[in-house]
């Protein structure tokens, strides 16, 4: 097929199945969520499918339900950076991206870890920067749950800016290694990074030489106004939640429209929302499979547990195939400091749930399926490929972060049946270019190392 120059290229990320109910462990083919072989299989399959990157979310504390460790869903995952480093050894081309918190890390350390990953992978490292401030996760860290909500994005923004400055602080040619003269390092090639603010007081000499990408790819998921500002200032990729077509187009226009103010063009930021898919030889077969998978993703006990989390009450006596409980939530004493807002939020949430359930006459289980197991693309491989292509050509997204429901085989079918059709359409790569970095795969502008980094915000 001849390449149509006006044709936009699709970018895909492969999301390793997570630790919530959408990952089905009851299927006989479901494998280990922690054995290295599962990660190796998943990443290599994604590499066969020529995906832009492998993506792994982060765990900082095991989920709890009503004061006890949650036991219905897959639980337990690896340290993000360590597993990505291990995967660098068994893959050759695919990007390696993981979620890492700006709250429970420090810039110098995280920048050296990501710089290390970029060296180890030959330029394939990426960082999904997230913020967090709650005391539940904080209880596992020196920092604790200390961060005011308002400071989350301030810290994240300063963190990202500091990381960029640390990565840029080594010139590409700083290492001279001249055995004759005895000069290893050109001291002018390494500059000090100083930063003095309310949140960071740093006077650093970075210790990881300039890595193949200059700086790892930065991904960002936040959707709030603060999140969009952060993304347009710092991110290379947005991992959004907008998959409904018109909504996705609106998000695309809004975010890409903000780039010019930062001196960036449309291609310098890619939008890759999370998407699920179910394939069938016919639409009917795909819909049937989608229903079966949804029922496995939302078992009766999953649905009841979901409601218990919202209501903060014991609903073990309720039937998941029956209507929503007609009781008030337990939101704690309303008079207590800080509880009034929470109380209102929970009530608003419940009233929304009731509204949807009533309008569509849904049982508890079907309501939760509707909320958590509503698959993005359901149909024949031809239909799914056409839809993915349409989203990209019509500027609703630049591609997708594809989430499978099984470990480690979740993306096998997509790789085997959908990818070739995307290639036939001329919108997807036929091979990896030798030596391409993740930045190259994503079609992002190169980073000049050693160049001064613009101070954001």
């Amino acid at each position, binding site marked *: 097929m001849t390449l149509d120059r006006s044709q936009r290229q699709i970018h895909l990320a492969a999301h390793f199945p997570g630790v919530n109910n959408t990952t089905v462990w009851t299927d006989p083919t479901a494998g280990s969520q922690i054995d290295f072989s599962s990660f190796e299989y998943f990443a290599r399959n994604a590499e066969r499918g020529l995906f832009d990157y492998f993506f792994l979310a982060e765990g900082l504390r095991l989920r709890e339900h009503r004061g006890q*460790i949650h036991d219905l869903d897959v639980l337990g995952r690896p340290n993000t950076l360590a597993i990505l480093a291990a995967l660098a050894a068994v893959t050759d081309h695919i990007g390696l991206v993981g979620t890492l918190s700006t709250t429970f890390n420090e810039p110098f350390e995280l920048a050296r870890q990501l710089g290390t990953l970029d060296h180890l992978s030959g330029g394939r490292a990426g960082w999904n920067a997230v913020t967090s401030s709650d005391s539940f996760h904080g209880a596992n860290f020196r920092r604790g749950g200390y961060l005011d909500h308002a400071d989350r994005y301030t810290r994240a923004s300063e963190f990202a800016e500091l990381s960029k400055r640390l990565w840029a602080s080594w010139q590409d040619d700083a290492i001279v290694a001249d055995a004759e003269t005895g000069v290893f390092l050109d001291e002018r090639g390494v500059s000090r990074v100083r930063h003095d603010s309310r949140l960071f007081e740093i006077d650093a000499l970075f210790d990881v030489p300039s890595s193949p990408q200059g700086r790892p790819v930065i991904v960002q998921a936040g959707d709030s106004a603060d999140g969009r500002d952060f993304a347009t200032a710092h991110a290379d990729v947005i991992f959004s939640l907008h998959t409904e077509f018109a909504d996705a187009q609106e998000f695309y226009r809004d975010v890409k429209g903000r780039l010019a103010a930062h001196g960036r063009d449309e291609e310098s930021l890619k939008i890759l929302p999370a998407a699920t898919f179910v394939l069938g030889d016919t639409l009917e077969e795909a819909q049937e499979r989608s229903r079966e998978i949804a029922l496995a993703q939302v078992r009766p006990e999953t649905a009841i547990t979901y409601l218990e989390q919202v209501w903060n009450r014991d609903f073990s006596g309720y039937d998941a195939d029956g209507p929503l409980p007609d009781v008030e939530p337990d939101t704690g004493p309303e008079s207590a400091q800080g509880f009034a807002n929470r109380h209102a939020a929970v009530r608003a949430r419940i009233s929304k749930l009731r509204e949807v359930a009533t309008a569509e006459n849904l049982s508890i289980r079907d309501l939760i399926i509707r909320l958590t197991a509503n698959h993005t693309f359901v149909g024949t491989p031809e239909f799914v490929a056409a839809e993915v292509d349409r989203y990209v050509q019509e500027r609703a997204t630049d591609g997708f972060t594809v989430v499978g429901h099984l470990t480690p085989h979740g993306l096998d079918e997509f790789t085997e049946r959908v990818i070739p059709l995307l290639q036939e359409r001329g919108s997807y790569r036929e091979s990896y270019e030798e030596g391409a970095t993740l930045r190259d795969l994503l079609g992002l502008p190169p980073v000049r190392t050693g160049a001064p980094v613009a101070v954001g915000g």
Partner: protein
Amino acid sequence: MTERVHLAVALDGAGWHPAAWREEGARPRDLTSPRYWRELVGAADEAGVAFATLEDALSLGERGSDTAEPRADRVRGRLDAVLLASYLGPVTRRIGLVPTVTTTHPEPFHLATGLQTLDHASHGRAGARIVAGSSAAERANFGRRTDGPSGLPASGRVEDDPAWTAAFREAGEVVDAIRALADSWEDDAIIRDLETGRFLDRERVHNIEFAGEFFSITGASIVPRSPQGPPLITALAHQSIPYRFAAEHADVVFITPADVAATAGILSEIAAAADDVRTDSERLRVFVDLLVLVEDSTDAANAAWARLEERDPLTTDARIVIGTADAVVEELRGFAATGVDGIRLRPARLPADLVAITDLVVPLATQAGILHDDNGAPTLRERLGLPLRASRYARQEVSA
């Protein structure tokens, strides 16, 4: 009968001599390339070396160096050791991977889950070399804490500096937390019970509720139990507080006797420390550190050493062995006879002296019956003769 020892290697940049990067055969431009490390550690693995330690520091200069940085004449720039070890996990077979872990700045929770993940990715070959304290340069890089030691006190003894004794207490807490988190999931916590719809048995996953002097950690690890459970904990020690630290917290201690004769004194000091503070029923294993430079002849070795020293004289804590592979084997024999458990060799030059170790020293020492055969045990702990243990929480449950 000759006493047998385990053999380990300590890897750092272009080697332990500061002028090593200028040697012919050095690869000073490859020190952060994955291929360089894969070849070095791969060679040690093939030769049957029991484990490799990987140096690290959270500053541009060497640990404890107070020279103004950046300095031009020394190797500068490195990779994070825990991540380097993780990278090496899937592409090595038998060798233990023991990265240096700095305990003052990093989050203990991240250190613990990183080491557990290394243990998963290497199928049970994870260790850690624990380093206490921080330098002024490290503190400036992090900018989070101003407390900490500034070099050694005038006496040279860390017990004379409250900042150092605090640093060792903190390092001890980090080890405690690493082990507790490694134990927090029992072996059989994941049940995948279709009958009840439960993925795991929450009675077999334990919040560690760790509350120390320096930090606290409430939850269980996010990482399910790895093949070894707690990784092999090692520490380098030269004097009484570090000996006590190792006796209390480590599985393996690296010591630096000036010669064979000085070893007995150190061993008895460690034994006394262990009597005082060790609660682990398993004996602390002792490895002697030797810095080695190997050439085909004694003259060639001396000439190489003289060339290095002229360029940039070495300051070191370890005994230096300069000579032929046979001379190194004689050193091994001498230290083996003192009853230590192992020898850790620090190659002066990389890759040259590591190649000499793998190609010459190991075969000769094996022939001479000085080295333990690889017992084929799947994990690093078992390979060194240390038992695998059930989670501490499992023990409690059995008695309940």
